[in-house]
């Protein structure tokens, strides 16, 4: 794969440290002389940068939501939903209630009036206790 690997070097983003080294995957390559070949390797550093960017974006979104929860604009459900990368339709599917009800529960005013049963179901999905749900540690 002479040509390809040269290309990789040329076009790399300059940062060749691997961030993720959990599992090696199978990749295909093509070269005029050798045809199609397979290779088992870690994800290419360039792509690892992209993966990291996506996780950074998720973290940034989480921080933004956290601020909104702190100032009381959103309920802790919004925070925990963001934490497990969910969106309203998906959380509604897990809760087996309609989307607009979940959207209502994101308001802190409505959240305060929620009964224990609903809270327990949310807590089970988020994998936390009801206390952690109603009083997240960042609220002090």
């Amino acid at each position: 794969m002479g040509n390809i690997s040269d290309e990789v070097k040329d076009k790399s983003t300059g940062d060749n440290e691997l961030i993720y080294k959990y599992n090696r995957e199978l990749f295909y390559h093509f070269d005029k002389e050798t045809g199609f070949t397979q290779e088992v390797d870690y994800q290419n550093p360039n792509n690892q940068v992209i993966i990291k960017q996506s996780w950074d974006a998720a973290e940034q979104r989480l921080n933004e939501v956290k601020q909104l929860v702190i100032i009381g604009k959103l309920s802790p459900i919004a925070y925990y939903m963001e934490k497990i990368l969910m969106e309203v339709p998906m959380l509604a599917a897990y809760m087996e209630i309609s989307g607009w009800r979940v959207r209502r529960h994101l308001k802190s005013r409505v959240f305060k009036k929620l009964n224990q049963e609903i809270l327990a179901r949310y807590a089970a999905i988020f994998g936390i206790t009801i206390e952690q749900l109603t009083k997240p540690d960042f609220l002090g």
Partner: protein
Amino acid sequence: METTKTIINYTHRQAGHCESGATSNLFKFNGLEISEPMAFGVGNGLYFSYIPFLKIQFAPMLSFRNLPNTVFKRSTAYMGVDATVIKKIKDPVEAMERLDRNLEKGIPTGCQVGVFQLTFFPPEYRMHYNMHNLVVFGKEGNLYHVSDTVMEFPQVITYDDLLRVRYAKGAFAPQGKMYWINHTIDQPVDLKAAVILGIKKTVHEMIGIPFPLIGVKGLRWLARDIKKWPIKHGNDKASFYLGQILRMAEDFGTGGAGFRYIYGAFLKEAGELFNHHAELLEASDMMGKTANKWREFTYMGARNCKNRSKPEEDYGTLSVKLLEIAADEEKVYQKLKKINF
């Protein structure tokens, strides 16, 4: 605690793409030597669709692959292999019981799963992505032995965890879907006919569907949209969107370059099958070159994501590159369309 132990003598082979890998391994288990690219090509794995108004994980929906289970269903159908697909099982406990019964009968069974809670999966890939496939081939007490073609080695997963991932919710929820090949394949299979059917269908899906967001047309639409992103959404969001496209193209077990390498390898095998069919081999070469262009595109994109300097110009270049790729791909499909088998 039960102490039953049933492990089927199933060979785990790593593959580029989860479903065609699983399909190919299932074929091989049942005595038919079908490689991953062959299963992928015959089963119409190649696809492209771009749905800008549908957001998945905060980015426009984009797919380089066909709907889940297409590869298994079509490849078995085209080859005339007796297989079973259960689309949906309402009761999770029943779904697990059915799986157990299959294992007792010695049938390795494919399952569609979501990857977010898949315990052995690389942490960096654990997003809410429900179109993943694995093959369960053994049970030991509470533990299931599974072959996931993304992973280097076979893995184990507990009953509860497997149940959870088989009933992950969200877009394309697995709903307990399972599939298997019914019995050992002892009659000869008409692979040539299957290849012809597979190629025709893929060509139709890539250039024949009169809808602007599917196939090569979708690719062109995306190319035009990319140019507008930095102006329309701002730098950060454009970069995030671009990152998601590149992720779809290079991660999630695509074999790289959004499956184009696998398809090229398929065309090469098909060419050899048809006594070194010159046009098919040529098409395979063209596909390989297109795949390399895709890889160049992802490198350009990755650099762009990192630097974010002069965004308009960069996105313009990316757009041009994508249009070039679309033109190249179209040539391949046109060529395939004209072949008289």
